[in-house]
């Protein structure tokens, strides 16, 4: 479990926050999905999550699992099923760390 202090440090760290909200030029696969050429990591996550909700892609038997449709599959490593737990990590793959 993350200690309270550490979590606060993440939220307060301007670099980490910038990493979340800075607009990033997108690779073509993601660009097709979100329909714009730039988006922040946070924005992308929100977009994917609301896409999942509005298209009822959560597995009715286990809400923690998402059954990907063709469109979603393309940006989530082609997996037919992803767990909600790994969603942020999968999206993060499209936002590589900036070289210093």
């Amino acid at each position, binding site marked *: 479990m993350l200690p*309270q202090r550490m979590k606060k440090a993440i939220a307060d760290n301007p670099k980490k*926050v910038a990493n*979340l909200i800075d607009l990033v030029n997108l690779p073509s696969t993601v660009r097709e999905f979100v329909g714009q050429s730039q988006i922040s990591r*946070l924005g992308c996550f929100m977009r994917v*999550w609301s896409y999942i909700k509005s298209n009822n892609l959560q597995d009715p038997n286990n809400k*923690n699992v998402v059954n990907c449709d063709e469109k979603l599959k393309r940006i989530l490593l082609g997996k037919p099923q992803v767990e909600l737990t*790994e969603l*942020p*990590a999968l999206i993060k793959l499209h936002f590589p760390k900036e070289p210093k």
Partner: protein
Amino acid sequence: MGKFPPSFRSAISTSMAINPSSLATLNSPSIPPKPLHFPKKPAKVSRKTQNPNSPESLSVPPQLRSLFKSPHLSDAKKLFNSVVSASKLQLDIRLHNSLLQSYAAIATVQDSISLLNHMIKASPSFSPDRSTYHVLLSQSCKAPDTLLSHVHQVLNLMVNKGVTPNQATVDVAIRSLCSSGREDDVIELIRELSSKHSPPDGYTYNFVVKHLCKTRALATVYNFIYEMRDSLGMKPDLVTYTILIDNVCNTKNLREALRLVGILSEEGFKPDCFVYNTIMKGYCMLSRGSEVVGVYKRMKDEGVEPDLVTYNTLIFGLSKSGRVKDARKYLDIMEEAGHFPDAVTYTSLMNGMCREGDTIGALRLLEEMEAKGCSPNSCTYNTLLHGLCKSRLLEKGIELYQMMKSSDMKLETAAYATFVRSLCREGRVAEAYEVFDYAVESKSLTDVAAYTTLESTLKWSRKAREQGLAV
């Protein structure tokens, strides 16, 4: 109408209660209701810094508020003429002032002065009084202007018309300058006005000290105090010391606070309930329970009657430093002394109980509290949610969360984080996402904070699962 200085706000709300039609028939400016300053601050300071001769109340009848739509002078003059010709009654001075004020809210200082001149010409029965000039003064203090030229212009106008600035004038100017964040100008204007016209009174002085405490370094505040003492012989009073002690306590500078308490008694002041409450709060911040009780005992010894705030602080401090049993005892003492514990009292106590792991006890206290007719607030529920999740009573926590959600209560950072973590630990990730959605939707947290928590929690739970720790 745009912004009002805080000191005017209560005056406006009282004037709203007056029937607008009866307002025009009032023949002379009536004695203004005392405006209450610092409306948001706890009663302790506002009670003492209430200013008896602060700005004359300027009532703006609601229908005049949106009268002036254009900042152009010619439009304003036309409008004024039409108001004068449309009303059959003799317009009184308050109406003139209101008109001027509503125009001043959208126009430049120059144009407002011109409108005033036009008013004097157009209606011979109107002779501007002090409050008329105060309208202009307050406007000029808020005008974006790095030098004090507009302020000087209005002051000169006042003096030329035979109205010498008095303490109320100083108060209006200083408060307006403070509200637009021009602290350096405040000090300069005080110097100037004290040498030429009138020194500030104790209320204005304390207002400035309080404002400087909030916006500037402590050294600036002390410099101001020393300067006032040396040049005007104005000494800090008990309220000033309370403000200072409160300020240093908030920055956890307890040593300085104790020094100030020492000076306080050297100067021959007897600390009152507010001073004690402030000191107690300082100890609470550092979680020093025994000192908190010490302050309470000293109050008792000195014969100062503790009030609701004292008990709330005491219970909060004891709960915070892990002495819940004692805190509980003081809840009873408090009730015996005739105070009604409020949501703050109960929430502090529940917080302490939850920290000790006695969440069931905290829930029982919630029932007790509701039985006594005290309704819990969102802070109470957040405390309980946090506690329930910590002590692994997730089902009860979810129940509580549903209730909070149905009454649109906001989640606090700690409660949100703990709740999301508990849900993830139980493998209820979808529900955690739902809580995330609610936190974002209800604007409880910023999107970034809500997401960061969710992301790091998910990362942690995946790792834990890989190691076979969680479900």
